[in-house]
């Protein structure tokens, strides 16, 4: 009974991931894509717990799920930090030089 519940939950999770995959493929901006990747990554943590229930080794798979959630969070933060650099590095260096001159 538990096995069937886990199988049905896992399959419906996979089916519901398809619209999110569509958004990742089509998404007009890069932010849409990383948002979809974030959603799928969070759902993968759930899927790992479901797989653990099927193999009857939840205590091992829960650790994987925790690691996956951590990795997903770090990836989202880093990508958002990377994408919001609104000025280029050269401009930044030029500004630093100007500041130095103004001080001197």
């Amino acid at each position, binding site marked *: 009974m538990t096995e069937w519940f886990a199988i049905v939950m896992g399959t419906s999770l996979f089916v519901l991931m398809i619209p999110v995959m569509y958004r990742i493929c089509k998404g007009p901006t890069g932010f*849409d894509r990383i948002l979809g990747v974030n959603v799928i990554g969070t*759902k993968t943590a759930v899927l790992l717990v479901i797989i653990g229930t099927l193999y009857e080794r939840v205590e091992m798979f829960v650790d994987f799920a925790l690691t996956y959630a951590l990795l997903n969070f770090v990836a989202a933060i880093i*990508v958002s930090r990377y994408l919001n650099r609104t000025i280029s590095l050269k401009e930044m260096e030029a500004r630093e030089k100007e500041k130095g001159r103004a001080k001197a």
Partner: protein
Amino acid sequence: MDSFLTNALAVSVEGGNDGFLLLQILGWVLGILGLVFFLGSAVGMVRFPDFYTRMHAAGKGDTLSTMLMLGGFGLVTMEDFSIGSWLVLFKILAVVLFIYLTTPTSSHALMRAAFEDDEMPMTEEDLKKANRKDKKKR
């Protein structure tokens, strides 16, 4: 404590070593509720017109559905009240707490990155323009 809980819940056992019926039913209800919220999140990500509305659907639905589903599976896997199963339940609750803290944080960071990158929210005029284009195509 262990024996008390076991005796209290043993009334609802329905044969076999398949766990406690009460906890199982509660876990199923939580899991199916999580699926409903994830359905809303997925539909919102496809149907909404601009980035910020999609962020609204994804951020809220994703957080709540993940927490509900993980909690449900934590209850379903609780077969006996031994130390091991308590440990698994606490680990799953730790994952739930972690997701409760991090998913809103990451969606906030993404939203701020998009706003600083001059991604403008959709206004009423944009909607009218899009509708006109659709009519012309037809």
